């Protein structure tokens, strides 16, 4: 009897904790940013506009408001949005790889590899031109933009059905 009551108490406690955790996750800044991008993409799709217009939707107002005008603060504006696109990119890539086979699968791997090298060389080039900390927010914004574009590219590719 006592063991039963204890089990019930533990079960209730675990349930409550899990719920609190779920609430915390859905209200987290990450979840909010994700929702902003998702609704932007849905609106652009409905309006028949370019999905790439959503890139910068979190970083741009953050940079304009200048809450933290230090170089790291500015870079952080881009990183917040980068996180959302990076997650989306990985999800789309996984879906595509499941969808593709044979030569197409091999080629997709090559596309991703070439893209990562290109993105890092391109965005890293700001450090070559600008040797101070000013390159940090430029690199961050560039990395966010390129990741967003690639996530959208994969999203479009997913939408095309082949005639194989």
């Amino acid at each position, binding site marked *: 009897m006592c063991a039963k009551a204890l089990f019930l108490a533990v079960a209730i406690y675990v349930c409550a904790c899990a719920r609190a955790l779920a609430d915390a996750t859905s209200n987290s800044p990450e979840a909010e940013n994700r929702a902003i991008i998702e609704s932007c993409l849905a609106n652009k799709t409905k309006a028949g506009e370019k999905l790439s217009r959503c890139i910068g939707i979190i970083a741009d107002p953050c940079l304009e408001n200048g809450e933290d005008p230090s170089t790291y603060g500015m870079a952080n504006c881009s990183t917040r949005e980068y996180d959302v696109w990076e997650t989306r990119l990985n999800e789309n890539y996984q879906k595509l790889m499941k969808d*593709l086979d044979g*030569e*197409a699968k091999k*080629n*997709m791997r*090559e*596309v991703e590899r*070439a*893209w990562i*090298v*290109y993105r890092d*060389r*391109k965005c890293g*080039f*700001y450090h*070559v*031109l*600008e040797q101070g900390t000013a390159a940090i927010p*430029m690199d961050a914004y560039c990395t966010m933009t390129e990741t967003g574009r690639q996530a959208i*590219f994969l999203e479009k*590719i997913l939408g*095309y059905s*082949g*005639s*194989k």
Partner: protein
Amino acid sequence: MLVRNVAIVSFAMFLFLISSIDGHAQNRQPTPEEIRLIRDCVEKHPDDGKGPDECSFKLVAEPCIEKDGSNLGTADCYRIESVIWDTILNENYKDLMDAIDEKKAQDKLREMQRTWIAFRDTTCDFYWYKIHGSMSVPMTAACQLRETARRAFLLALLQRV
């Protein structure tokens, strides 16, 4: 003898005509007017970020597609505009290279350009592997145009960093 000569000349003219028609359809170079349209637009949008949207597709490729919207015609219109962007890109690349005096930085620029070409080609060619149809031909050509125009603007912008 005369009949034979006339026949040879006629046949040669026929061959010339065929090759020039074919040449016109697939190897047309951009006209001075098309080049001017793009260059004027580029001058108007040096660094407001609107350049790629305002200056690519609308001015040359789209009016060209209105005249021949077939799959191959469309792809060729994208190719014609890409020729213009490719020239601008090469000019901007050279200017940027000249503006950088350090050898190490020049090497980085060369490397960056190489990785861009690899990215552009693997990405734009991927449409074929996914679609496996003739629709992928204009999509690949549009992708090449989009990326080349974007790149031309970036190389100009980097000169001002």
